[in-house]
């Protein structure tokens, strides 16, 4: 079963590994990885919560809309679970 997820569109300050260009975008889970310690805590020397890490596949059309170079090309990125919600 392929799962659709949306990247949260929050804009917090600080060390974040979710690129801004993917925030608010919807994609399909390509594979599940982890758990890995939360880098948002590691960066500040805090004990880090283990998190699932998901590789999410997006279409260029979803990311860039009408401005996409080739809408059917794709992009994959690893997103920590707390940045994803069901879509």
């Amino acid at each position, binding site marked *: 079963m392929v799962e659709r997820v949306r990247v949260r569109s929050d804009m917090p300050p*600080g*060390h974040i590994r979710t690129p801004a*260009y993917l925030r608010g975008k919807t994609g399909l889970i390509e594979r599940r990885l982890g758990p890995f310690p939360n*880098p948002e805590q590691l*960066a*500040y*020397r805090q004990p880090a919560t283990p998190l699932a890490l998901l590789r999410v596949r997006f279409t260029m059309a979803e990311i*860039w809309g009408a401005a996409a170079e080739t809408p059917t090309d794709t992009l994959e990125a690893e997103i920590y679970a707390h940045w994803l919600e069901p879509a």
Partner: protein
Amino acid sequence: MNDKTDPFDGRRWHDMGGDPAGPVPDADHDFALWEKRVDALMIICSSKGHFSVDGLRRVLEDMPPSSFDEMSYYERWIASIAQNLIEDGVFTAAELGQTMTDVKQRGATYGDAAHG
């Protein structure tokens, strides 16, 4: 970077995916000994738990946008390594400052100051 006419939306300079930019430079260079030493110090200090790669990146990202163009890659790295080691209590800023002054007095080039 954000268009200068837009109000700041929280996206910072290092988060540059999708920004317009010029041609990819045909650039490469072998690394100088001091640069390789910086890289080695990062790997050694992180493997011994003094700080993490995320700590390294946090300090790099907190640098002003101009640092990306005005400082070289390993210049930014040694600045971040030094700050992380101060935060970890490995040495104090005063110790680092005094040592740097001593190093500088040894000679005018890297080779002289580093004793090789």
